[in-house]
Every structure is written in structure tokens, then in C-alpha cells.
């Protein structure tokens, strides 16, 4: 980054890193930063923890409320808040207001924060009106790419066409659609460890769809789902590689897939 002075916070984009990307795959967050910066935005990453999604879905409303208050004070002064995850963005956008009674100042704050919070592809396509240049990926043409629509992004935020558009522009390939692209992969946050057997059956059903689409690569927008699918594929000895869609949109080589090393 250059030595130019940073713009005021109200002009900056804050990245909501998301816990899973922070811990297990920083490359996704780096990709998100690169993509947002590409369209002229100044990106900041305030020191953050978790949006509270696991607590919210476990029924721990009080604990979620405390985390939500932290997040509000951390992010409310930025122009946009962008997450490379549909479920984290939806937690803020859709569910934060449910934590506070309507008419309260906190509820009002949540509504305002929600308005400027976006899932990455939704932001790039719908807000930044991004048109990505085509990049020359040596084997992109022969590569079959399937896309898993993570449930929160799909049903709570309407993320479906956006990542497909970005991938189409950038890679010049069409998605090999799976018949079950909109069916839950069985991750479900704590669900996958609470009911591992059911979760495994669900991810196996997802893999049937991946195999039918003859996909070399599976993409998606939520690392939780992707770790679940990638982990099961790897265990079954499949050749299909799994990435977050943002990793394939950057200028650099995406490197090893989730669960692989150089």
C-alpha cells in the first residue's frame, strides 16, 4: 500500500475477516482485500473477534447480544462492512436486529449497520458494479467448476448470480451446475459435530451431486461448508479440489486447495 494518507473511516471499507478464514485460511481474507481494493476502496481490518453466529444459532441470545454490541461499536463508523461469508454477513444483516427490541437505540444501530454490511460477491456485483477482467488461467478452459450455494447467503441474502457472474467474467468458464447446489451440505455450524452421522450422510449426498457434475473444482462462499465438503472429499480419496470463490478471482495463483499443502 502506498504512503498516501488514509481516508476517514466513513470512506473506508471494513473487512469482517470471519473466524474460520482468520484461523484456517487467511488466503480468503487476503483475496477479499485484493478484490475490494481493486475497485478503488480503502480497506481496513479493525481488530475483531466473532460476529456471534455460533452463539446465536445455539440459542445463546444473551451472549450474542454482547458480541453484537462489540461488533457495532467496532464497525458502525465505516462506510461498508464486507464479509467473505454469507452466513456471517447474514448474522449482522438479518439477525442482529432480532436481538434488540424494536424502537431501542441498539435496534436502530443494528439496522444501520445491516444496511452497509454485504457479502463479498454481493458487494462487488451489486454495490461496486464490478466487472472483472478476464485472467488467463492455464487450465481454466478444461476445468469443470461446480458451485455450492451456501444456505445463509442464498436464502437470507439472495446470493446466487453474483459469484457466478464474477467467476464467468474472470475465468471465462460456465459453472457446471449440480442438481443439488441449493441443498445444505450438512455443515450447519455446531450441527456437524452434534450429529456427525447425519451430517456425514448429508455431505455424501452433496458429493453425489459433485460427482454427477463431474467437477474438478468445487467453489462456494462459506468456509464452514467448504471445510466440511473438502474434508469429506479428501477422506473419500476424491480428486476434486475445493476453494472459496474469491481465491480464484485474484491475480495470483490460488495455490493448494483446502486441505492440501504444497
Amino acid at each position, binding site marked *: 500500500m502506498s504512503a498516501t494518507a488514509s481516508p476517514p473511516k466513513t470512506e473506508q471499507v471494513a473487512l469482517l475477516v470471519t473466524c474460520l478464514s482468520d484461523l484456517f485460511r487467511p488466503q480468503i481474507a487476503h483475496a477479499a482485500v485484493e478484490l475490494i481494493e481493486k475497485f478503488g476502496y480503502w480497506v481496513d481490518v479493525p481488530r475483531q473477534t466473532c460476529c456471534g453466529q455460533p452463539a446465536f444459532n*445455539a440459542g445463546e441470545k444473551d451472549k450474542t447480544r454482547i458480541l453484537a454490541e462489540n461488533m457495532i461499536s467496532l464497525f458502525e463508523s465505516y462506510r461498508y462492512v464486507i464479509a467473505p461469508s454469507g452466513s456471517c454477513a447474514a448474522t449482522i444483516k438479518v439477525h442482529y436486529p432480532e436481538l434488540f427490541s424494536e424502537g431501542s437505540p441498539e435496534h436502530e444501530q443494528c439496522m444501520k449497520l445491516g444496511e452497509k454490511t454485504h457479502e463479498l460477491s454481493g458487494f462487488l456485483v451489486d454495490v461496486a458494479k464490478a466487472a472483472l477482467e478476464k485472467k488467463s488461467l492455464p487450465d481454466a478452459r478444461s476445468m469443470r467448476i461446480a458451485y455450492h450455494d451456501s444456505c445463509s447467503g442464498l436464502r*437470507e441474502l439472495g446470493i446466487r448470480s453474483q459469484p457466478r457472474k464474477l467467476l464467468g467474467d474472470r475465468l471465462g468458464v460456465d459453472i457446471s451446475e449440480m442438481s443439488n447446489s441449493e441443498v445444505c451440505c450438512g455443515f450447519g*455450524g455446531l*450441527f456437524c*459435530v452434534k450429529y456427525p*452421522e447425519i451430517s456425514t450422510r448429508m455431505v455424501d449426498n452433496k458429493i453425489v451431486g459433485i460427482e454427477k457434475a463431474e467437477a474438478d473444482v468445487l467453489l462456494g462462499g462459506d468456509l464452514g461448508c467448504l471445510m466440511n465438503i473438502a*474434508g469429506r472429499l479428501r477422506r473419500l480419496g476424491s480428486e476434486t479440489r475445493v476453494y472459496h470463490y474469491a481465491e480464484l478471482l485474484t491475480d495470483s495463483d490460488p495455490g*493448494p486447495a483446502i486441505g492440501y499443502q504444497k
Partner: protein
Amino acid sequence: MQVTSRYFRTTAREALLDEDLRAAMGRAEGGFIDTRKMAVEELENFEEYREFARKTKNHVLAHLDYYLTQFESNVLASGGQVHWAGNGEEVNRIVLDICRRPDIRKITKGKSMVSEESALNAGLEAAGFEVVETDLGEYIIQLARETPSHIIAPAVHKTRQAVTDLFDEHHREAGYSRVVERLDIVNQARQVLRDHFCTADVGITGANFLIADTGSIALITNEGNGDLTANLPNIHVVVTSIEKVIPDMLALGGFLRLLGRSATGQIMSVYTTLFNGPRRIDDLDGPEEFHVVLVDSGRSEILGTQFRDILRCIKCGACMNHCPVYTSVGGHAYGWVYPGPMGSVLTPLMVGQKKAPDLPYACTLNGRCKTVCPVMIPLPDLLREHRNNLVEMGQTGVVQRWGMWLWSIVARKPVLYSMMTSLYVLKLNLLARMVPAFQRGSFKYIPMMGAWTSSRDFPVPQASTFQSQWKKRALHD
């Protein structure tokens, strides 16, 4: 019906090993989803009907006393009788009181999920009556001595082979031969049931809608068994629940457009029949007595809670057909009358949360059920509401309680959080470096994480946390 919901974990695990169940559910799932989609697309303003249905039901639920008394007085005016049942015991007692006459022996039954709640069949059989289920699916599971696993397709878990064996076992003595083909199976059931229809003394059916301003019962079926059950015996008893009342025929028109499409992907089910009181003097047929048993069983209590929306349910089954958990484990695992998403909301309310502690968690909150529900019940939100209640009641397990507590302490403090996450990433990376087998980029096993690693690899984290990498970048700049 006996509640076994607290064993969900075990029964679900067993169900996953049942290959017949997997085959049966796999076939059903595809059929239900594709046909529904086509039927919904055929109706241009389907969404407007959903909104209409939601509003209509909300209105009725807000004025339930008014519509129920209107319905009652119109049933009485057409010569029928109305019985109010507060709970399951009362349902069985009322029906037994109607049936206890010297000349009554055989009872035919159309499909009624409400009667399953109080195990009415068992109650009638214990009192010496012969009860014959006449819906094909219900008949099959009655022979198998099982309970329904789906609210509109009670035997959806059965393969054709299983039905062949079952019919052979039960029909052989009466001189029937073994049937294998679908059509032959249906025809044999039809023949066996026809004898029962003609010799039954009482017919018990459920109801899909109760029309307040005419006192009519709307019964919607695909087999016509409901009509034969209702019309041939001298006594027709309708066992139904209080939330099924709707204002008028106009409303019925709206609901009919939604029900067939949502349930079976039909534009309209095959038989839609309205019953109005007993046979009138110039009627050629019909029962001489017409009884409506209006069942509460906890519904009026739900009305006053944050779960009120579940009472809009028209029992179409779309939520379970689209639920990846239901289609994986089948309906029996849920342990009571109503399975799938609507069941996971309703069961804890009707039998008590302590008897069904797992059901609210048996869901990934993927939201697909909510998008197909014809009356727009926010099912995932209601399941989350159950979870909130379980947390407040201290009914979650020790692991979850302490885990959540510890996690929330860490997540509240950014400095502590970044220390802990960095340490965790470091630990996993050291572990990966120490064990050569993990240098492939994935763990096959991690202590304390067996629930994940028993069936899935877990990725080795990339070097360090993003936030620590970002801090270095900021310093570098």
C-alpha cells in the same frame, strides 16, 4: 402415541444404517421436490396465495373463539353434533362413547394425524372394536404395526418389496395371491378394503379445513377412501383440531390452490369433498349421525406464545420433503406423530420440551423449509426460539454450556481472542509438522475433535492467523 423423541440421536443413527429406508426416501425425495416445483411454477401468482394464506390464518388465529363458535353453531344447525376435547384422553373417551352400542363392531378410518396423537386406534381396539385404516399408506403401516413416518405419505419409508411381503402375510389366508407389481398391490388393497367399507358401522376421518360460515368439513384425499369411510357407515365421526378452521368458501379456494401443489405437486388433489351434517330426508345416502370432535391438546396454549405461527400449518408435508435431515433419517426418528421441521417445532410444544430435547437441534438452519412453506411459517426461527428456551431453562448439555461460556469469554476480548486463536493455529501447525502423515495438508484425527474427524479430514491451518498477518502488513506499510 408414545413419545420416543428423546431417543432421536440413537434412532437417527440406526435409521442411517437402514438401506431400505435410504432407497425409499431417495425415491420419494426427488419425486416430491420436482413435482412441487412444476406445480408451483404453473400458478403465476403462487406467492400472492402464500401471502393470502398467511394473513387469513393469522386473522383466524387472532379470532379463533369467534370462528370456532360460528363453526359449531353451523354444524349444529345442519344436524351434526360437536364435541370439544381438551386432550388426547378426552378424544378417545368421546369417540368410545359414540361407538359403544350393541350393534357397533367394525370401524373404518380415513387418515387422521390428530387421532394418532392420542393413539385412538389402540384405544378402540382395547375396547373390542375392529379398526381398519383405509388410506393405503395407513393400511400398510397398520398391518406392519408401525406408526406413520410422514404426515401425508405415512408409509413413505416402506419399499415395494416390504409391502409385497406384508400383503402376502396378511392376505394369504383370505385366498389372495402374492402381488409384486405396483398396480396389483393397489388393486389387492382396494379389494380387501372394499369389503371393510361395506361392513363398517362407524367411519372416522380427519379434516383438512373447517369452514366456519357453513359448518362444512373439507376433506382432501387422492384415494377416495375418505369419502367411502364417511358415507357408507351410519355414523361419521370427524376427529380434527381447532386450528383448522377458516372463515369461508372463498378462503378454501385459496388454500386448495396451495395444498395440492405443496403436498404432492398436484394442481388439485383427486378428491375434494365437503361434508355438511348427516343425511337429510331427501338424500339418497350418507350417515345418519355426524359428529365433529374438536381437539385442543395444547394448541390454545401455543396460541399465546411466540410459537403461534406454527398453528398456521396446513399439514402439507412440504417442509419435510425439502428437509435434508428428514430425508436422511426418515420420520420415525423424530419419535412422535409429526416429523421433520414442523414436527420439530410442534412436538416439544405438545409433549413437553423435556421429552424432545434433541429435536430443535436436529436442524442445520438451512432455511429451505421456510421457502417452501405455503403459509410462510418461519420454521428455522421457531427452532432457534426453542433453543433459546432450552438455554434459558438450563436444559442444554454440560459440554455446550461450558463450551459456550468459555468461548464467549474469549470472543468478548479481542486481545485474548487473538492470543488464543494464534496459539491454536500454532498448536495445529506443530502437530502437523510432528506427524508426517499430516504433512499432506489435512488431519485425519485431532484429539477432542473426533466428531469431525471420524468421517472428515480437517485442514491444516495456513501458517498464522489472518489478523496477525495483517498486523505485519500494517507495520510494513
